[in-house]
């Protein structure tokens, strides 16, 4: 007898991976808590997080949107204006440090910086640069809608049962004078790049862990019952600002994020990790869930990820009540996603 003798089949690569069709690889997740129809789930993070909210909604579960689109707005226009993308209209939150910034603003720990960009006669929110496709008509309008988003983000913290966060990047851009972070490098999605003011930073394990720890502590203080579900985006970087090859930078970034997420899940009963990153990017799946650019995830991959999510939930807790098992929408178009980071590819020209 060895410790391996009593291990389940899923512990062995041959029986659970190499001897199976990739579509039969199962039991990848042992969920810590059940998502019921009444469980309010908030979703934030990188572009891949958008799939989780929609999958919850497609199955009749409670995707908690604290900043809803106004009545009458057609779904395609709601997405164009960044409603129904995440639980509130924050735009993508790629880094844990940016999540910390939003949390601090929402909970009144920090005040929001006064910086506003202009584009012609329109006004761009540096912290949500693509949320309004043509920019805002005035500073007052920008500030009023941002305040609504901050209040809605706070409501996500205070009123949700589960906070889903998809960790996307470690690379970030900060204002070196004031210390705050931009979701996108100034000059790419708005604003002008100033080399003396805008500084690049690549977060390491310790900093990602410290940011996430701060966020969880703050959110749990505001809502002691809040649980967390972490995922890591399987989407490679569109571009890197380091001196490394973008593939190497991607591996660094995802490795750090995956390690931090795993450590939190291992240490805390209220924090879980769902392996969407592994399902898409592990060699066991042969890259088959990526689009031909080997970056964007095909709709079939998204469906497989979300089917795995709900299959693991059902395996652990039993099937959902009938009312919450609507047929999921299949093969969503990639264009439906709102991914600001893709803009960076445009700055590579013919490279």
């Amino acid at each position, binding site marked *: 007898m060895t410790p391996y003798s009593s291990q389940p089949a899923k512990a062995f690569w041959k029986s659970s991976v190499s001897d199976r069709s990739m579509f039969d690889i199962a039991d990848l997740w042992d969920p810590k808590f059940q998502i019921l129809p009444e469980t309010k789930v908030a979703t934030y993070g990188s572009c891949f997080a958008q799939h989780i909210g929609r999958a919850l909604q497609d199955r009749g579960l409670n995707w908690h949107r604290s900043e809803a*689109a*106004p*009545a*009458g*707005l*057609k779904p395609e*226009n709601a997405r164009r*204006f960044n409603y129904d993308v995440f639980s509130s209209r924050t735009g993508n939150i790629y880094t844990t440090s940016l999540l910390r910034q939003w949390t601090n603003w929402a909970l009144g720990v920090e005040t929001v910086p006064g910086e506003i960009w202009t584009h012609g006669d329109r006004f761009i929110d540096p912290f949500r640069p693509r949320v*309004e*496709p*043509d920019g*805002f*008509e005035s500073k007052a*309008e920008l500030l*009023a*809608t941002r*305040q*609504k988003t901050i209040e809605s983000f706070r409501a996500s913290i205070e009123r949700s049962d589960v906070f889903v966060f998809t960790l996307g990047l470690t690379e970030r851009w900060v204002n070196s004078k004031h210390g705050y972070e931009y979701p996108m490098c100034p000059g790419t999605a708005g604003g002008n790049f100033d080399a003396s003011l805008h500084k690049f930073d690549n977060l390491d394990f310790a900093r990602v862990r410290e940011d996430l720890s701060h966020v969880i502590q703050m959110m749990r203080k505001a809502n002691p019952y809040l649980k967390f579900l972490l995922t890591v985006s399987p989407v490679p970087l569109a571009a890197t600002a380091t001196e490394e090859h973008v593939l190497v930078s991607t591996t660094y970034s995802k490795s750090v994020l995956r390690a931090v997420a795993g450590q939190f899940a291992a240490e805390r009963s209220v924090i879980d990790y769902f392996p969407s990153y592994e399902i898409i990017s592990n060699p066991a799946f042969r890259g088959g869930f990526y689009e031909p650019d080997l970056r964007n995830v095909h709709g079939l991959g998204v469906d497989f990820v979300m089917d795995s999510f709900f299959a693991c939930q059902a395996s652990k807790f039993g099937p959902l009540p009938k009312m919450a098992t609507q047929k999921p929408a299949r093969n969503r178009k990639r264009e439906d996603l709102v991914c600001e980071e893709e803009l960076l590819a445009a700055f590579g020209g013919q490279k």
Partner: protein
Amino acid sequence: MKLCILGNSHIASLKAAWDNGLSAAHPNTEITFFGARRHLMLKLVEENGRLVAREDLVAQSLATTSGGATSIDPSVYDSLLVYGLSRNTNLQVGVLADGYSRAVREQAITDYWDDANLLRLLKKLRRLTDTKIYAGHSPLEAATSDPTRPKGRYADYVALSNDLVFRDLNAELIAQPEATVVNGMGTDAGFSAGSTRLAVGKVNDDFEHREEENRHMNAEFGGIWLQAFLARL
């Protein structure tokens, strides 16, 4: 003046008011009602300058509400009003609340009307006539007065709808009379008491709606609405 009113179940309140005394106060006005329940008016087809009922149920509804006609010739009327055929307008008024950009507001209003059967029927008419067409949305849902709710938002909403949608169609959205509006986005609940089903030649013609029904209004409401409308023609 010859006025044509087309719509769904909501025209019952206007017709009841007209048939029960309002017509006597307007001896120079002749109104012909054409109605069918739910969305059935959209089944009318455009043919030789007329809207024609091709299905028996629609034809029966038109004949019952108009007094015999199964098609509508817009050219014989001085004014046209399309009424009802819209839902949740009260919720739409909320788009003027704080926290939405002008672009979002305008898109939401445009999208809402684009999806409304009211506008679909209006566009069918517009293809047949150049006469200005008036539009009246289904009544705002019945509500009890809440003094904390902002006033005036509804009027702004109607004005914006005209600027964005109706004016380009040589049409005008008519606001529900101010006397019937509470909370800036609801109809005084008293007007929903005793509302009746549109008579379309079925066994439940003129039956009262259930007590909890809060979308259809009574003849008193119809009278206030119609008087205000006729006064502006």
